[in-house]
């Protein structure tokens, strides 16, 4: 059994910042993360969304990230890797699995910094080998020094496409096209809101420069409508879309030969752990969907549970670090440790500043209803159980908007990924068919384990 005053779940920028702040305030701190050790794990963690995003953002100043890990270790924070939090059966206890061993971690306070995963929106051919998320392609480069293919198309939407392009280029990849679904015209009117965020703008500019230098065509207002290929990807079909994300059928489609397509539409907060802890959720479309309700000091509806970073709503690595620090300080304060008001204030101000930029970016790359309207009836939405959009739409029309009922009658979301990949799509489809806004109704129920655990491991659970 593990135990600490503060247990932090997730070793990304938010979690590490929280750990450091809580530890420096005098708390004993344990960080749990499902990905493997050691050292540079900060940059090495695999695909699941946020960590990837954060890593890329930190890419230019690798040393800064290294310094954070170093500082966390030096401060005496305990790091437990390959440790999956799969449930919580008691407010102060997390059920964990570490290298196939079942165990628990007890905490007085908990910081949930579980990040996010990439938002995949189905389209014709998205299940062909060669189609992946930008995060997956970047992981291959960063982690295994492997470039995914010899002709790569990057598509979808969001600021993450650019750093992925840059890392791929750095590894010698041949990117043949980049298509961003939104249009920059709308950006100019927001210029004043970018004032003061110079570090973020400089970073964005460096990505643009790298892409321009490589002579890659970067098109806006264009989306993938189809991936073609018999056994593997051969061509990608792109077409212009309007401000709602609907395909402009009057515009000519463009076909590009490619063996790799990286596509995603931003990120979805990973809130399963928060839900397992009984935190109330609220829907924030701008910040990616369901998030734990929290106050300005990052406290959730459960008094001893705090949330930080992408798990609290998509906002980027800098917001994540600011929020981590704030959540760590809040947790320490909750424990009754002395936390200077000035320190708390500074952290809260930094958070607001960083969130402001994050929200601006979220607005510019907001998820459009057309992305979901465009899903053809024959396209699979749930790959695990092979359920098509048409089956889902018919089920919604017949049975109503309740996604848990739709899950029951169609099996959508019951497979290996437990609805992580299709959940958001099903909610959007249900909302569209039933004519309400996504988030007006509950999402899929959370049913432990959060990620699959073997029966023999669960058989070790003590009573």
């Amino acid at each position, binding site marked *: 059994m593990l135990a600490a005053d503060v247990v932090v779940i997730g070793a990304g920028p938010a979690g590490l910042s929280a750990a450091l702040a809580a530890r420096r305030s005098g708390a004993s701190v344990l960080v749990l993360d499902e990905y493997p050790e050691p050292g540079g794990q900060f940059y090495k963690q695999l695909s699941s969304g946020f960590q990837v995003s954060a890593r890329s953002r930190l890419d230019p100043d690798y040393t800064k990230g290294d310094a954070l890990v170093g500082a966390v270790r030096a401060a005496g924070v305990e790091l437990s890797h390959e440790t999956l939090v799969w449930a919580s059966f008691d407010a102060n206890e997390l059920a964990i699995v570490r290298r196939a061993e079942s165990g628990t971690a007890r905490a007085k306070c908990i910081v949930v910094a579980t990040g996010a995963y990439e938002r995949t929106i189905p389209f014709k051919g998205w299940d062909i080998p060669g189609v992946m998320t930008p995060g997956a392609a970047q992981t291959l480069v960063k982690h295994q020094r492997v470039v995914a293919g010899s002709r790569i198309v990057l598509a979808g939407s969001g600021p993450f496409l650019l750093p992925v392009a840059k890392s791929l280029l750095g590894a010698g990849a041949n990117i043949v096209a980049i298509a961003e679904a939104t249009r920059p015209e709308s950006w100019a009117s927001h210029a004043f809101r970018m004032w003061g965020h110079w570090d973020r703008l400089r970073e964005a500019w460096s990505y643009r420069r790298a892409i321009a230098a490589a002579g890659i065509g970067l098109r806006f207002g264009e989306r993938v409508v189809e991936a073609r290929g018999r056994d593997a990807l051969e061509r990608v079909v792109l077409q212009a879309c309007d401000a709602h994300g609907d395909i402009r059928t009057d515009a000519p489609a463009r076909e590009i030969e490619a063996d790799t397509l990286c596509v995603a539409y931003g990120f979805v907060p990973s809130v399963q752990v928060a839900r397992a802890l009984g935190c109330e959720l609220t829907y924030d479309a701008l910040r990616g969907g369901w998030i734990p309700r929290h106050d300005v000091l990052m406290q959730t509806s459960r008094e001893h549970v705090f949330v930080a970073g992408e798990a609290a709503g998509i906002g980027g690595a800098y917001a994540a670090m600011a929020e981590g620090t704030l959540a760590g300080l809040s947790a320490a304060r909750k424990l009754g440790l002395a936390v200077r008001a000035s320190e708390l204030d500074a952290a809260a101000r930094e958070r607001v500043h960083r969130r402001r930029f994050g929200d601006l970016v979220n607005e510019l790359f907001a998820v459009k209803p057309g992305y979901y309207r465009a899903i053809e009836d024959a396209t699979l939405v749930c790959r695990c159980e092979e359920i098509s959009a048409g089956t889902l739409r018919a089920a919604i029309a017949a049975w109503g908007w309740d996604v848990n009922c739709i899950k029951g009658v169609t099996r959508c979301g019951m497979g290996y990924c437990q609805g992580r990949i299709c959940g958001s799509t099903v909610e959007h489809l249900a909302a569209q068919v039933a004519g309400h806004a996504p988030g007006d109704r509950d999402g899929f129920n959370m049913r432990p384990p959060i990620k699959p655990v073997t029966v023999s491991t669960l058989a070790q*659970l003590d009573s």
Partner: protein
Amino acid sequence: MLMAVDVAIVGGGVIGCSVAHYLSATGARVAVVERTQIGRGASAANSGVISLATKKPGLALDLALVSQQMFPTLSAELGYDVEYLVDGGMIIAQSETQARFLDELVAAQRSDGAGIAMIDAAQAIALNPLLAGRVLSASHCPTDAQANPFRVTQGFARSAEKLGAAILHDTAVEAIDVSGGRVRSVHTSRGEIRTRWIVNAAGAHANEVGKMVGVEHDVVPRRGQLVILEATDDLPNIRVSSAGALLAKHQGSTQSINAAFAYTRKPLSGTVMLGGTNEFAGFDTATTKTGIGEICRLAVSAMPYLGQLHALRSWAGLRPYSPQGPQLGLTQGPAGYAVAIGHGGDGVALAPVTGRYVAEVIAADGKDADLKQYLAREKARLAANAGQRGVTA
């Protein structure tokens, strides 16, 4: 006033929806009043097993015999595939006590007309080669089956709706008006519904509704936890459960969590459902560390192969348990008050017969309502049909 109907059914689980379907088919004006969503209670949290082998001889088994005969044609009747599949079931004895219990049970079940037989350990293992733990003997019922419980519930609800029933979700029954010894109307969170009849089909909440007409029922929530495993190819489809589960169920044991081994394969999805617990824990539907741990330990010891598979999810539901078993039709209370309660761990299997019987009682305006006679009649009819077709159990 919200509406006026002949029958207001309280509860939109598999039971309430079945009653609504059969009643609507008689031409009655029906409203189903459901506090949350249709089929979100126990009816969304069970294994969907339709078994004779698990039934206690007497009322439960007779109901099951009649109900089971209704399943093969149910999809056609509802115009909706309820995914009814027959793969048979076994109950294994893992101790001497269990073996003796099974011998007696099967003898009694056979004399009630159920096609169940005892087999030895070798035969059991041949039927389900995953079995590797201690097995002394087993009972085998080749007609044991399963259906998709979501689809059974939704199928009944939609069919009822097509036949004219009003299905009200997000509507709670808060009070019932009784005057002159007869029910008059139900007060819901969305207004009053005038009605001649009320059917209490509130599952684990049956007592709450009973109180509204001054009746004390004895239904209590009995929690069952389940664990679902990842899909795999080529696992045996025949169901296996331990006689230990039955001992707990039939004896209503109040001890501990009463975890017992049950392996239910879902051939359409390829997953395996592991059961289950039988706990009295109030209305708490949380899964527990002990529950999941026990279920997995029992599974690994009976079928070691399962140890390597991943558990994908777990959940718990509340069986509407009554020490008397199912209570259907007219029991006590004012005129116009009927019940369909106390189905415990058998509500899906017994839903068709429950719906049909309660509908008949109400269609006859409550005259000559006698469940025992009804079942005797139905069983005789089934036997005659089987005889005509030259089929013997």
